[in-house]
């Protein structure tokens, strides 16, 4: 059958004049440019076949060498296995005979809107050329189900849009939160979003506030150009709002490595490269990542240009070694709207409380000592995510001495040490010396025999920057020796106090309070504090209490990793062969010459260029992705690669028409989707004749409507929806629905997955907690992307594991039981159930099969009530005990059958 198709293609080619970009460039790129391409010189090869002039000059030679019977001379060399087919040789010959006309690669030419056309006229024109005619329109119910699945990820219910025209129904769908959830789910794949860090231990991270930003963007139909700019450079916008900063989380969704022993520089390079590659794939449809180690072999990108892009993204002061658990700087607090209100309220009370404290004249010495949160060594255990203060009076007798410690006895071993080393005061927080530890020391040295007041505070940030050290109440300049604390430095050993008068506080004291402790406080503020503590202790306690409340509240506010430029730009270099430890020439930020010849100096300008008319790609690549999600295959099938190795668009005029329409509409996503789903092309029936199937198995010509299996999220979501279990709450932290026990534990030996309970079990799949090294099994079974790297091409397989999943997973069994209860309550019974799941009425034959199945199962379960009860026991939700057990069990099994129908999990 394949042969027939290939011949059909070849036949249609012969009939047309040669077009370089469609017919020749793919052959040259795939078979010739590996050697005769942009880096030919590096291989000692003189002839370039990626430029028009040398090709024109070598026309005769080319024709000879591709067809010579002399195997030693034939090109491409026989041993490469890249030889040309007879028809390819014929094509090249025709082109050479015509003078080898050249075109710039189509994707780098600006899109042109074909005048006076529509989606349908452009599709029809192609069909006419192929001698095909479009399919008739699908039935209204099929069409509504199709559109609803495409636009909301959930099917239309029977009768849901009865009082509306198709267009009104589409408008309604586009106005829902479900629409935003559907679009967000797709974007999360492209943005490689996950709730874990991805390497080794794969600890949890918190990026859902970014995910909710995306939801909100789709919900409010944020123009796509704005959508791009904010995610690429929201932090650089003038007066950037919290939301605009959150948007840049897009660029921090990549994996982060917290494994002990890694070389941080190696991963710093990975992170910046990932940002370049993601941007290239998702906005430019270009494989610029190939130029990381060498000039691109097929497309016009040099290695230097890769690093010019890299230079936009490597300057956020991040760590190469990410924290094993939690977010890694730079990150920001990202309170939700209710949290912002609450925070403002706490801060209001705090300001008021502070205002009530008026400075008064204090007499006598400043003797106040902070008493709040004072604890004792017996009671207190410091943790790596807790705030605390340790202070002591100390007289060093030698240059190296312990002051206060809670650690294993050996040198450099685990625990906390506040000590003197070679005269300098050190703080050591150690989980495993040397790669999981924090060490800072004072620049200043202490003199033996002199009495000091020593203190340090720690803010629970896991960072050296979170430590302050004071000598005699004055903050000291510190040297950071190790800044790799990644896990708790907990030990069983008690505190060792090598000094009298040790004070331990379960909060990080502000500098002034440390100064008081040291007896070094002075000035009006000190006077005021002293007054407060001595004359208005209650008011002071209230202030401290409110500060604590604010801190505690912030501890529960979600954070999100973001982009944040450091003040001092780092130099960027070409990395020779892509190796982090082999810097070559220095480069400055810039976009590849093929795109722009004006300076684009920073990330914000880059973002603006991405969505400018000067860039030929972002609009095309974006409309192609939307088209792919609706028709199953993009107009450019290689959605991730619009370059020379990518596929020629099946309908270039249509691609351009859509791109221009999208830009002209102000990058209006809803408008674009509506335009597509209202087209006659979209509304065709998906029935296919054997002839058409043989001619066009992937439906690239669009002589019929799309028919393909739902994606993983939709398969689960609609089962919950049919059964009435779906809990439709928008946004919030990720949730943990059912998952077979042991999946996490058997990989890591650590903590296992603990499913949530109640409503969290039934949220839409876009909210499911995504652990990269152990993704949700149903999602993985149904071809969801792994979220390791940016993925834009959709893939669909058909496997026995999917069958087992749908038949036996508790999610679908519980949904079947609940669906059974609905069916039993409905006067139309199984006919209703069938219609609900497929969107159409059952034929008499189909209904007969269902009714027969029901009778059989009922007879079985009436004989075996125990089995019936077992079948009804799956899932946390309670069954309706008013219904007869055998009857409900039989209905449950038939409902499961409905949920397993090919038609039920297929958009058609």
């Amino acid at each position, binding site marked *: 059958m394949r042969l027939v198709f290939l011949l059909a293609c070849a036949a249609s080619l012969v009939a047309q004049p040669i077009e370089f970009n469609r017919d020749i460039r793919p052959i040259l790129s795939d078979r010739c440019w590996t050697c005769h391409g942009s880096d030919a010189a590096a291989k000692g090869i003189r002839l370039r076949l990626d430029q028009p002039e040398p090709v024109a000059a070598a026309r005769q030679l080319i024709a000879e060498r591709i067809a010579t019977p002399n195997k030693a001379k034939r090109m491409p060399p026989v041993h490469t296995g890249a030889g040309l087919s007879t028809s390819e040789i014929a094509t090249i010959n025709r082109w050479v005979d015509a003078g080898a006309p050249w075109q710039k690669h189509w994707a780098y030419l600006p899109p042109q809107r074909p005048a006076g056309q529509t989606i349908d006229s452009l599709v029809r024109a192609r069909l006419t050329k192929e001698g095909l005619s479009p399919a008739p329109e699908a039935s209204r119910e099929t069409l509504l189900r199709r559109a609803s699945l495409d636009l909301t990820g959930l099917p239309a219910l029977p009768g849901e849009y009865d009082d509306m025209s198709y267009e009104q129904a589409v408008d309604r769908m586009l106005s829902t939160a479900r629409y935003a959830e559907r679009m967000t789910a797709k974007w999360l794949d492209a943005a490689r979003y996950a709730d874990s860090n991805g390497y080794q231990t794969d600890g949890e991270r918190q990026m859902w506030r970014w995910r909710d930003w995306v939801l909100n963007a789709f919900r409010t139909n944020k123009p796509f150009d704005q959508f791009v700019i904010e995610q690429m450079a929201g932090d650089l916008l003038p007066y950037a709002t919290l939301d605009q900063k959150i948007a840049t989380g897009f660029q921090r969704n990549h994996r982060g*490595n917290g494994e002990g022993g890694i*070389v941080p520089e190696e991963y710093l390079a990975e992170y910046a490269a990932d940002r370049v590659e993601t941007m290239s794939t998702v906005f430019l449809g270009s494989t610029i990542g190939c130029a990381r180690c060498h000039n691109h072999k097929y497309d016009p990108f040099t290695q230097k240009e890769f690093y010019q892009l890299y230079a936009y993204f490597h300057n956020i002061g991040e760590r190469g070694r990410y924290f094993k658990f939690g977010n890694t700087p730079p990150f920001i607090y990202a309170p939700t709207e209710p949290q912002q209100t609450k925070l403002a309220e706490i801060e209001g009370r705090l300001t008021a409380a502070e205002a009530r404290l008026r400075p008064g004249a204090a007499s006598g010495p400043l003797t106040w000592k902070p008493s709040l949160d004072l604890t004792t060594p017996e009671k207190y255990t410091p943790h790596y995510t807790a705030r605390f203060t340790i202070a002591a009076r100390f007289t060093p007798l030698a240059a190296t001495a312990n002051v206060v410690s809670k650690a294993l006895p050996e040198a450099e071993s685990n625990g906390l040490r506040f000590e003197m080393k070679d005269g300098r005061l050190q703080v050591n927080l150690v989980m495993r010396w040397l790669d999981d530890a924090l060490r800072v020391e004072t620049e200043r040295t202490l003199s033996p025999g002199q009495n000091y007041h020593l203190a340090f505070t720690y803010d629970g940030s896991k960072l050296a920057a979170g430590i302050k050290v004071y000598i005699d109440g004055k903050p000291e300049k510190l040297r950071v020796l190790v800044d790799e604390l990644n896990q708790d430095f907990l030990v069983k050993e008690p505190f060792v106090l090598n000094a009298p008068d040790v004070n331990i506080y379960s909060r990080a004291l502000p500098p002034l309070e440390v100064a008081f402790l040291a007896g070094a406080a002075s000035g009006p503020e000190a006077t005021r504090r002293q007054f407060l503590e001595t004359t208005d202790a209650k008011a002071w306690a209230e202030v401290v209490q409110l500060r604590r409340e604010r801190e505690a509240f912030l501890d529960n506010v979600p954070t999100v990793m973001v982009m944040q430029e450091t003040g001092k730009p780092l130099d960027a270099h070409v990395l020779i062969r892509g190796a982090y430890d082999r810097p070559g020439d220095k480069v400055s930020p810039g976009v590849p010459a093929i795109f722009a010849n004006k300076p684009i100096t920073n990330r914000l300008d880059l973002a603006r260029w991405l969505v400018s008319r000067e860039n030929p790609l972002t609009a095309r690549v974006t409309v192609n992705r939307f088209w792919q999600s609706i028709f199953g295959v993009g107009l450019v099938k290689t959605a991730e690669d619009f370059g020379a*190795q990518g596929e020629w668009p099946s309908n270039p005029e249509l691609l351009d028409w859509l791109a221009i329409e999208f830009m002209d509409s102000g990058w209006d996503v809803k408008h674009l989707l509506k335009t597509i789903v209202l087209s006659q092309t979209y509304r065709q029936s998906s029935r296919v004749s054997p002839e058409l199937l043989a001619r066009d198995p992937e439906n690239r010509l669009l002589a019929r409507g799309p028919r*393909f299996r739902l994606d993983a999220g939709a398969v689960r979501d609609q089962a919950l929806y049919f059964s009435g279990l779906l809990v439709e709450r928008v946004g919030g932290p990720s949730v943990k629905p059912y998952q077979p026990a042991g999946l996490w534990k058997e*990989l*890591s030996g650590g903590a296992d997955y603990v499913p949530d309970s109640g409503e969290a079990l039934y949220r839409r799949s876009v909210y499911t907690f995504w652990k990269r090294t152990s993704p949700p099994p149903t999602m993985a*079974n149904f071809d969801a992307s792994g979220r390791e790297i940016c993925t834009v091409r959709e893939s669909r*397989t058909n496997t026995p594991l999917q069958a087992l999943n749908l038949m*036996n997973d508790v999610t679908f069994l519980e949904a079947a039981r609940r669906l059974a209860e609905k069916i039993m309550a409905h006067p139309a019974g199984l006919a209703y159930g069938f219609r609900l799941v497929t969107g159409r009425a059952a034929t008499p034959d189909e209904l007969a099969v269902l009714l027969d199945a029901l009778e059989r199962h009922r007879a079985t379960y009436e004989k075996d009530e125990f089995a019936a009860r077992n079948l009804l026991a799956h899932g946390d939700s309670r069954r309706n005990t008013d219904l007869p057990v055998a009857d409900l069990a039989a209905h449950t099994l038939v409902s499961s*059958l409905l949920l397993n129908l090919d038609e039920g999990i297929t958009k058609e």
Partner: protein
Amino acid sequence: MKRRDFLSAAAVATLARGATDFAPKAKRVIYLFQSGAPSQLETFDYKPALEKMRGVELPDSIRQGQRLTGMTATQTSFPLVPSQFAFKQRGQSGAWVSDLMPHIAKVADRLCFIKSLHTEAINHDPAVTFFQTGFQLAGRPSIGSWISYGLGSDNKDLPAFVVMISQGTGNVADQPLYDRLWGSGFLPTKYQGVKFRSQGDPVLFLKNPEGVTPATRRSYLDDLAKLNTFKLNDTGDPEIATRIAQYEMAFRMQTSVPELTDLSKEPDHVFARYGPEARTPGSYAANCLLARRLAERGVRFIQLFHRGWDQHNHLPSQIVNQCLDVDQPTAGLIEDLAERGLLEDTLVVWGGEFGRTVYCQGKMTADDYGRDHHPRCFTVFMAGARVKRGFSFGETDDFSYNIVKDPVHVHDLHATILHQLGVDHTKLTFKFQGRHFRLTDVHGNVVRSLLS
């Protein structure tokens, strides 16, 4: 027409040429992956000269400025530490095997040792990912999924690529594994490894739910096929025919997998061969026995992952236990395969993601020491499928630090494994992001010296 026929020109080429490029020596592979990185110094790479150099600094001439992990890079001293375990020459071939592996020692004449494996990564995640996918970063297909894609399955009732996991008793808080290690990367997900589990269903969602008997399931599937066939006749979409077939395969798996994983009919002497842990579900020993049963049924790529080899500290006490886990079952598997005539066409591979340093990590006492990661040399052995028997290949220096003869890169090992399966590693390709990707990237040479 099957969808996969249209994945790409390369895929079509691969499938169209009749799977193999030349007559295969191996019909299947059992890969016993030792996760965490076993020390070559305590097991197979005998270095007598170290005995006299205990505590001596690692000479700069040997280290040659090579990069170390962040765990020991700032260590102020790199004292050499010899193996605490004695070595002997074994069998006719005289292969050096330490006393930690008495059973493997007995089958030494069946083994082909590669002393000169080397890799590029120095940390677990990138190194294991490299071994599994030929690339240090996640995103590419695993070796088993490449083979599944290239050769398909020999058994219509079982997946082509099966994975089993066990936790060792050496380092019990050892390195985690990741689903992507047997994932399909950019290949379609149908080629990913199927994990056989010792807890719950052996294959996820395999068992009929409580309350559904096999007879009920059969009639359910008949009804489903009827309904799906109506639809197939109506729309003409061949995907529906495929779906019907996949449900039938699922049904067959419901029988074939429990039959496969049910060890109750194995006689006592077989259990005895695999050692005392063979009756403990989920142990390495039980997984070895299952591997043989999978091999008998024609599963193409069977991969065990045994965790617990990451001996940074307390190596002597940990490695004793860890070797106890694997020694007898590994030898038992090889003997069992040989006895059944399966070793002829089954390639067995044993090894981890890198080696361990000759210098001590952390505290060194009379009977305690640790070893850090060492990518520059380590030992892997193979058996069966016409690789040389009783053979050692490659040499390291007196410190087991550098390779002095016949280095074998991870890509070379991959190329050799594919070669034994009858696949030219340069021709097994898949086009993605404009490139024809291979398991071996643009590298790899078949190590013909290993083949008989």
